[in-house]
């Protein structure tokens, strides 16, 4: 054996330093926290950015409400997925990531149809940057709250959990932007709402891998 530390000594060391721990809150509780953060963020976006003037009339149109429902479902399933997968033993579950993927697929499909059928090819950078800023700013608080809740558990598949956290946050950011932006042009939504959303998702995979709770555990020799 290369390791000079005996396993029995390690056990004695761990037992001697044992302190009572606060268990990770149940899934429902963590989801409620996320939901609260999501509602507050969405409310904040409505107040600080302002809703589009025709929001109420648009809500009854399927063309407008279908993507909104898809984004909401995507954010919700991503949040459930992040909370559930972050507990060891649950990481192989496929149902929740699949539900989130279906919601993402629905949003992409609606956008795709819009891009194919729309004639408009103009992009206004000024307006677009405002939308992108809204997506990014309102993603952050929701993602941070969820990241805290998830990190308190002990996620094994860090990339997947990071992606779910990012999608749950970015989904609320994209929804905020969708409800406050008056531009229905599919190319605009794709470029300034959807691409930043995807960008945050990729960032989530990267950041998720950085927050490894097992970091520093090596060879069992560094426990002192």
């Amino acid at each position, binding site marked *: *054996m*290369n*390791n000079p*530390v005996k*396993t029995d000594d*390690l*056990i*004695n060391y*761990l*037992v*001697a330093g*044992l*302190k*009572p*721990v*606060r*268990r*990770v809150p*149940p899934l429902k509780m963590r989801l409620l926290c996320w939901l609260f953060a999501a509602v507050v963020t969405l409310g904040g976006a409505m107040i600080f950015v302002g809703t589009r003037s025709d929001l109420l009339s648009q809500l009854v149109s399927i063309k407008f409400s279908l993507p909104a429902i898809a984004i909401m479902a995507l954010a919700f399933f991503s949040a459930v997925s992040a909370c559930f997968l*972050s*507990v*060891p*033993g*649950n*990481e192989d579950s496929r149902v929740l990531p699949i539900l989130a993927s279906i919601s993402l697929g629905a949003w992409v499909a609606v956008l795709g149809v819009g891009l194919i059928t729309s004639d408009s090819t103009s992009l206004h950078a000024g307006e677009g940057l405002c939308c992108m800023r809204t997506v990014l700013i309102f993603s952050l608080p929701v993602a941070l709250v969820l990241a805290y809740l998830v990190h*308190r*558990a*002990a996620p*094994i598949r860090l990339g997947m959990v990071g992606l779910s956290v990012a999608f749950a946050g970015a989904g609320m950011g994209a929804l905020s932007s969708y409800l406050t932006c008056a531009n229905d042009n599919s190319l605009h939504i794709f470029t300034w709402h959807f691409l930043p959303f995807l960008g945050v998702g990729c960032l989530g995979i990267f950041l998720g891998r950085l927050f490894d*709770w*097992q970091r520093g*555990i*090596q*060879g*069992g*020799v560094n*426990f002192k």
Partner: protein
Amino acid sequence: MGITEEQDHELRKLMLDAQSGVQDSYARALRICAEVLRGFVQRRLMDRNLVEDVVQEGLLSIHKARHSYDPSKPFAPWFFSIARSRVCDHLRKESRYRNLLRRKMDQVEESAFAHAHVNGNGIEILGSLPEKQRKVVELLKFQDLSVKEVAKRLNMSETSVKVTAHRAYKVLRAEYE
């Protein structure tokens, strides 16, 4: 060796106590975990000398994640999930390290090895190693002999050759990092 239903029941109770800070229960839980973990790791690692390292890493992970266990659920899935992750991490690290070493050794073959032949002082890169380790690495990496052939030539057991090479690689890795 897996976790029997009886053990699972016992471990659930022990972990519940451990979460409230009961030391005896935690010690018993960790000892059972260590035993199961040893069997689990032994079946997955080629190098028997590293088993205890990975068992200890697993115990540390269990200690760090003990708050995430829900005692109303079976213990085995939670436990094996952590155990699997530790073994995978270890294999990944090993593979990364072997690749790095292979690359470095290739460089050595191109430059240092040629230089070493010229000045006749042996391979420079291996200069910091004790004689026995240097000989093993030379035969394995520069003369492309198999572990069996090296063991025969140096009158050592195959396990001993692997352990010696592993120790030498560790020293080399530390030098390169």
